[in-house]
């Protein structure tokens, strides 16, 4: 057993040293602490950051907690990132207030902080690279309204009721409907943790309960796929609007099962974050708010090179 323990430690360290070798080659190191790392969206942000790192000749790392609820795990990651004496830090806060002591520490150590994705409620970050989620969801509401003819019942399947993106997309959609389309009724808002299977079950129960439902908005990739699956299993024809991209959503839009979706510019978020960080290190000027934009895409423009560049598989 003693030997095994040792072996494990040696293997762990060996793996660690082997995998980390490239990092030590870097002069300028910028860790990005994100809200997650498993979803395709975050992988796209990561690839944007890596692209920028290559273009600007810096080294980046990218990590985030397993779920968006793990606020304290993210704080630990931020602490470890700071311990590595980085040149700058990119940070997408799960909870801004919880991170403030560490952000102050970064400020004291003169490490520039660039916020990305949903931003940080603090004046410490020098810039924020993000999508305006509320506006984007409002666009989704407009599209939904025109696709169902301006009246009828619709529903939402949202990934989370506590996270900023969940709240913004939900409220952005709901407020737009309430303000502009009095004949459209929102009959149900349900939360599926962004899990495809859970969202599928939720969708089926919504459809069972509302035989006249005309459309559902899935507020992130997992939710949207769940909505599609649920409608398919019950053989119901409804207008499905999604969010973000990914292989399945793209295929569904091409085949017409999904009317369309909002895409952010995740690659751009990653790229712009690193770009702003490098500018901050060099003392160059940059915008405080970096709107990375969002776009509606459907069957008609999915292969448009401008859109296709924003989509990920």
């Amino acid at each position, binding site marked *: 057993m003693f030997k095994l323990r040792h072996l494990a430690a040696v293997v762990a360290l060996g793996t660690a040293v082997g*995998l980390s070798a490239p990092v030590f080659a870097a002069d300028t190191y910028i860790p990005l602490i994100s809200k997650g790392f498993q979803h395709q969206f975050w992988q796209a942000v990561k690839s944007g950051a890596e692209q920028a790192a290559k273009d600007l000749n810096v080294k980046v790392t990218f990590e985030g907690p397993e779920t968006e*609820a793990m606020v304290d795990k993210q704080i630990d990651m931020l602490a470890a990132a700071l311990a*590595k004496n980085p040149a700058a830090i990119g940070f997408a806060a799960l909870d801004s207030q919880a991170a403030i002591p560490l952000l102050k520490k970064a400020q004291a150590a003169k490490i520039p902080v660039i916020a990305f994705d949903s931003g940080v409620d603090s004046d410490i970050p020098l810039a924020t690279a993000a999508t305006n989620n509320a506006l984007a969801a409002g666009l989704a509401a407009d599209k939904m309204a025109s696709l169902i003819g301006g009246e009828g019942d619709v529903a939402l399947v949202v990934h989370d009721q506590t996270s900023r993106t969940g709240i913004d997309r939900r409220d952005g959609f709901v407020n737009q409907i309430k303000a502009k389309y009095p004949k459209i009724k929102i009959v149900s808002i349900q939360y599926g943790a962004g899990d495809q299977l859970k969202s599928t079950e939720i969708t089926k129960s919504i459809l069972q309960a509302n035989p006249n439902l005309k459309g559902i908005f899935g507020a992130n990739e997992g939710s949207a796929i769940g909505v599609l699956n649920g409608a398919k299993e019950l053989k119901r024809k409804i207008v499905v609007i999604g969010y973000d991209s990914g292989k399945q959503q793209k295929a569904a839009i091409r085949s017409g099962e999904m009317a369309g979706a909002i895409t952010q510019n995740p690659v751009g978020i990653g790229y712009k974050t690193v770009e702003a960080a490098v500018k901050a290190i060099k003392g160059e000027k940059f915008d405080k708010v970096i709107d990375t934009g969002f776009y509606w895409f459907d069957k008609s423009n999915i292969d448009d090179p401008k859109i296709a560049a924003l989509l990920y598989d």
Partner: protein
Amino acid sequence: MSTDLSQTNDVSLRSLRAALFDSAAGQLLLAFASLIVLVAGFGIASPNFLQTDNLIGILQATAVNGVLAVASTYVIITGGIDLSVGTLMTFCAVIAGVFLTYWGYPIGVGVAAALICGALCGATSGFLIAKMEVPPFIATLGMMMLLKGLSLVISGTKPIYFNDTPDFPVIAQDSLIGYLVPSLPIPNAVLILFVVAVAASVVLRSTVLGRYIFALGSNEEAVRLSGVDTDFWKIVIYAVSGAICGIAGLLIASRLNSAQPALGQGYELDAIAAVVIGGTSLSGGRGTVLGTIIGSFIISVLTNGLRILSVAQEWQTVVTGVIIILAVYADIMRRRKT
């Protein structure tokens, strides 16, 4: 208790070997040695690892999981399991938030409310297990979900911030030690972890409660047939474990300056992993608090060290999984020998 085995006067080579490899004390020694090896290894691999800031970061990262793991240790030694420690922690944090932020009570009241709430929820699990004979796995699984839901309901699915009680975040974030030794700004959360651990260890070794925790884990029916009210003691044990989760809830709320209602699920698995790595047997009857603390540190040193070395996150998870399997395997080997 079984650690005393090594004190028998037979000092033959075999008993020495047995003391090292088979006994609980030996397991502790090995776990501690593994921890030292990890720290040394990471220290050599990266100059950033052994810096004070980072070491304090590790201590702080261990505080919450360490306290939860201590809570789980009691239950696991009785041969039970508690899957609700993570969400119970969150629930207690939310209760503290409700008392302090929503209702404006003084901090002492909020702290007491969180601890009492933890004890009551623990006692509820204990009641389900002892009196209604629901298997611990199921009873605490139910509690886990129930408490997660209640946290969301009570908080209105939003984090509750402690901005009106600026003294509350101080509990975990300030450093008493730092006042005395300015070069060692170890946050109070860590101090609290050690106080909890020492107290829990003393209770386990030197009180009637501790005696019954081991006895229940070794042979519950024999204890019942010895005239001990096992139902009552089980409820007490789960209640104490729940109160310790309440401490964890206060720590995390104080550290994050907020009660995060969606957090907590999954933390029970980290706690169980720490307990197991520390040499406590999942089949009950054997274990130490010290081992659990060492187990918690092994997990957080590993996590932090791999991060410092910028190992890809996917691989960090793989390594942690391997370590847990090895630890359980070691436990099984040990049991096969005796």
